[in-house]
């Protein structure tokens, strides 16, 4: 029997006795010697009144105030303290329906007789002034001040998001929140909630048996002051954002503009949108319901959540992949006879000069050229079979941020869709498909799901000649610029920077080519700035095609990269290109030059939703 160490039982017992003794001594001190915790009278109670800090403000990239706060008042009730009171009189002061008031009172009583419940929310300052004079006549009621969001410019609803009362689920997730607290529900308000909300404080009052406040508990020694929320500096330009929203009025679609050198989102428009002020205060639930029921889905953020095939804008990427794979050289020419023809299959093209080299093919957007490029990538012989070569092609796409969430700080972004080989295997069988089966990918049609922010990001990567920074909407929290590492996350694409010149040359020609040379986007030309762009049209099985345009400018040291989608807008050059060029001009020049005013007027007056052209 191994009882060599039996004596250690004494040390162990001693430890136990020591711990118990320390506890009893500490409790003797806490409960008997120290009287500061004892309350003055037997039945006195401490009441905890939370102190709500003001939510952080939001500024735009130029320091312009976009979101601030306004005081609002909630009428609170502690049911157990109520005495008989003049209900009609109170309702008159509050300007509310008596039935609703009584209903709310019942709910408060059912929730708890002791815990304060808010019974009328967000009383405006005027009513509050009247109420305050009369409040002494209504024991059991008191007013609780909190703040509401206020917008200096009624813009950027999708970016900013909105604030609402916490749900039970949110309370369960984070015990910071208590019933009736407010929390960011979407957009910046949601993703920067912990910065914006600050820290609640608490005041402790002594309350007697009749629940009358007797004064602060121990002179506020245990109180906690609230900490005001941090202010945020957003990356968007309020003027550009307002202008973009105006251009997109009466249209469905989106605009995403990014500063290529930083990944900062300059503007993000989803149309149709709504005014952020609609979702503030007592009108919120009513307005929210109306917006949620709208068949045009104004609450849906198309810039992050709608996915489309990218159309011909994707030819730029296929060209780059061909160059990197060495199956394409800039001077390589292919001829086009009204399209691409192979084994009885035809991909149509428009009438243009032929043959073309790479820059001209981008300029003119020749389908045949890129069908050749695409098939040469997949059938180059470098890979054993289509599965391997398709995977290689797909990896290039992934390196540009497709098929994944790319934004650093915008909630609810969708990943989009880039098919895998298994997807085609399921449809055609493992041996049943070839580069020809999926030829529509060459011109950005087919099974591709790309979100506008992803396409804007690709444009930024082209503008940077091979890398991008994760798009983000906030550049500084609490004025500190020390978050560079978080916000400046550089991603290198799999394309070497030397390959970008011919494709960018093609994009330059598409906008700036001589009249009659076949340039697809001459409408986007701006004097004194070299805009590089590419049009696209996404086939839409449900109606008129979607108009797409990507562009960046200036050509050297680009300051803005942009993607515009206009649903049912037809060709890329019809709506998307002019809107993109107006945005670029507005951002780089501040205003639109006289000779392009007609384009602006046409865009502002087009109504694609109600089908008629306003004059």
């Amino acid at each position, binding site marked *: *029997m*191994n009882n*060599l*160490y*039996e004596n*250690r*039982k004494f040390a*162990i*017992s001693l430890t*136990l*006795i020591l*711990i*118990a003794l*320390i*506890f*009893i001594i*500490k*409790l*003797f001190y*806490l*409960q*008997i010697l*120290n009287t*500061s*915790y*004892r*309350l003055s009278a*037997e*039945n006195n*109670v*401490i009441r*905890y009144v939370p102190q709500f800090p003001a939510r952080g403000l939001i500024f735009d990239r130029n320091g312009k105030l976009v979101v601030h706060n306004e005081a609002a008042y909630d009428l609170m009730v502690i049911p*157990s303290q109520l005495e008989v009171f003049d209900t009609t009189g109170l309702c008159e002061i509050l300007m509310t329906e008596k039935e609703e008031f009584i209903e709310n009172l019942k709910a408060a009583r059912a929730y*708890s*007789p*002791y*815990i304060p419940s808010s019974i009328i929310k967000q009383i405006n300052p005027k009513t509050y002034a009247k109420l305050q004079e009369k409040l002494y006549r209504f024991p059991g009621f008191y007013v609780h001040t909190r703040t509401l969001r206020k917008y200096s410019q009624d813009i950027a609803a999708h970016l900013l998001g909105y604030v609402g009362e916490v749900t039970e689920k949110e309370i369960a997730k*984070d*015990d*910071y929140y*208590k019933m009736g607290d407010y929390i960011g529900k979407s957009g910046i308000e949601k993703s920067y909630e912990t910065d914006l909300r600050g*820290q*609640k*404080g*608490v005041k402790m009052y002594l309350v007697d048996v009749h629940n009358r406040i007797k004064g602060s508990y121990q002179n506020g020694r*245990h109180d*906690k002051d609230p900490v005001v929320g941090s202010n945020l500096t957003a990356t968007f330009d309020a003027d550009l954002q307002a202008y973009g929203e105006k251009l997109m009025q009466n249209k469905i679609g989106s605009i995403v503009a990014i500063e290529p050198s930083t990944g900062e989102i300059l503007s993000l428009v989803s149309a149709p949108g709504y005014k952020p002020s609609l979702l503030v205060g007592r009108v919120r639930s009513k307005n929210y319901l109306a917006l949620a029921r709208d068949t045009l889905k104004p609450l849906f953020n198309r810039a992050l959540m709608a996915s489309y095939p990218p159309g011909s804008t994707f030819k730029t990427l296929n060209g780059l992949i061909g160059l990197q794979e060495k199956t394409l050289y800039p001077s390589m020419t292919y001829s086009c006879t009204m399209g691409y023809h192979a084994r009885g299959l035809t991909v149509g093209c428009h009438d243009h000069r032929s043959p073309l080299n790479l820059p001209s093919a981008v300029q003119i957007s020749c389908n045949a050229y890129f069908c050749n490029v695409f098939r040469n990538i997949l059938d180059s012989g470098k890979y054993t079979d289509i599965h391997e070569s398709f995977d290689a092609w797909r990896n290039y796409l992934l390196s540009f941020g497709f098929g994944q969430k790319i934004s650093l700080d915008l909630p609810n972004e969708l990943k989009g869709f880039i098919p895998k080989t298994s997807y085609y295997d399921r449809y055609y069988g493992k041996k049943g498909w070839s580069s020809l089966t999926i030829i529509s990918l060459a011109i950005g049609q087919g099974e591709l799901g790309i979100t506008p922010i992803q396409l804007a990001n690709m444009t930024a990567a082209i503008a940077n000649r091979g890398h991008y920074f994760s798009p983000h909407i906030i550049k500084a929290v609490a004025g500190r610029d020390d978050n560079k590492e978080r916000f400046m996350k550089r991603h290198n694409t799999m394309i070497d920077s030397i390959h970008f010149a011919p494709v960018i040359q093609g994009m330059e020609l598409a906008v700036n080519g001589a009249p009659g040379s076949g340039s697809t986007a001459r409408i986007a030309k701006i004097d004194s700035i070299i805009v590089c762009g590419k049009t696209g049209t996404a086939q839409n099985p449900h109606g008129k095609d979607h108009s797409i345009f990507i562009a960046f400018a200036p050509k050297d040291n680009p300051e803005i990269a942009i993607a515009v989608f206009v649903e049912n807008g037809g060709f890329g050059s019809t709506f998307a290109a002019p809107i993109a060029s107006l945005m670029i001009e507005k951002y780089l020049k501040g205003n639109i030059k006289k000779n392009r005013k007609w384009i602006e007027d046409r865009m502002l007056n087009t109504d694609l939703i109600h089908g008629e052209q306003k004059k």
Partner: protein
Amino acid sequence: MVSRRNSVFANLDWMVIFLYFVLISWGVINIFSAEFNETTQNFFDFSLRSGKQMIWIAAALVLAMLILIIDSRFYIYFANPLYILMVLALLAVLVVGVEINGSKSWFVIGPVRIQPSEFAKVVTSLALAKYLSNPNIKLSRVKDLVIPLAIIFLPAMIILLQPDTGSTLVYFSLILVLYREGLPGVYVAIGLALAVLFIVTLLFDKLIIVSSLILLAFTIYFFLERRKKNFFIGLGLFLVTGGLVLGINQVLPEKFSIYYVLLITLLISGTIFLVLSLFHKLKYIILLLIILVGAVGFTYSVDYVFHNILEDHQQKRINVVLGIESDPLGSGYNVNQSKIAIGSGGFSGKGYLRGTQTKFNFVPEQSTDFIFCTVGEEWGFLGTSGLILVFATLLLRLIILAERQKTAFNRIYGYAVFSIILFHFTINIGMTIGLVPVIGIPLPFISYGGSSLWAFTILLFIFLRLDASRNEFL
């Protein structure tokens, strides 16, 4: 068969069972009070926690009966298979578990939620007892320590991934079992010192810690050195070097913080003194210096790892464990509220159901981790010291039972039960009265919660079963 079962009940230790019943009934009474207000009058309302706890208790008693009926050899033979099963269950919960309060440690089957980590303590204790009961194991040999430590810390590591730091820390209490079985005391002392230093490093400023370490070293030196002249030489050397370094620092264009001044002083004067003491062959000074430098190095590396290597969320998690960021209203709020509640109880308390501070969520987690507040407020000092005495009696009784076992397996398991309950008791009550950091673990038999109650019941009753048949197989 019948006669043997009778013998089990005849040999049961009824004192432990009595204390068990005192604790669980006191527990449910306090859980009811913690939730009590005018709308919740009915004790047996099953939508209330007290009502649910009654159900858990009933189930726990059935479990206890089952455990007493099973042959005691079962626990010895199945210790290892059960251990493997438990590791698998802990891994499974990482994959298919449900996240509650930020840790993925629950299986949810219909209305029942089970936390396997609670039961892991029992099985780990059995496996540890089984392994250590081999008479050839000598814990004073380092190589014999590897497997026992692995048995203890494998489940602890998996639980840390959930992450449930409170439950992980419980496993450290099993070191006490190793100590009883022959682990050299110096290991325990070093381990304790490092643990304290680790926590202290994160709680206090580095400067304060380094200064107090140096002060401590000088104090120890003062008492160890018989020739006080040597002590004053050391102190003088330290002060002169300190003055010099400080002076140089003042004229430098870019001043270093006082923390670095202290470190450089320590390094220079330490080296000089080390050389001096080498000449005079003062062995223990060398040891003291090594320990001092080691301790300072340890605090520095903890600090460095914490701030530079750990990710934000990991830092936050550790801070939460240490109570630095335990609650939204700021550090210390929980403990402050809890102290106000307990303190307001006075000598005899406000009376059952008369508490005011432990209602309405002023004290967080008042029916689980902070249940001791309710005891303090409503039962006063009489109640709190009474409860501590009940626990102390139970724990002392467990030591006596463990020591009277005739097999090593039984004794080791008994000590494991003792250590786990002691740890929970110490940490839980210690945190509510502000003596230890806030670590969310329940008070055994008292706190609300089925998993915890069942786990402690199983833990205790297996030992009672082993004890009842201690005379059977010799």
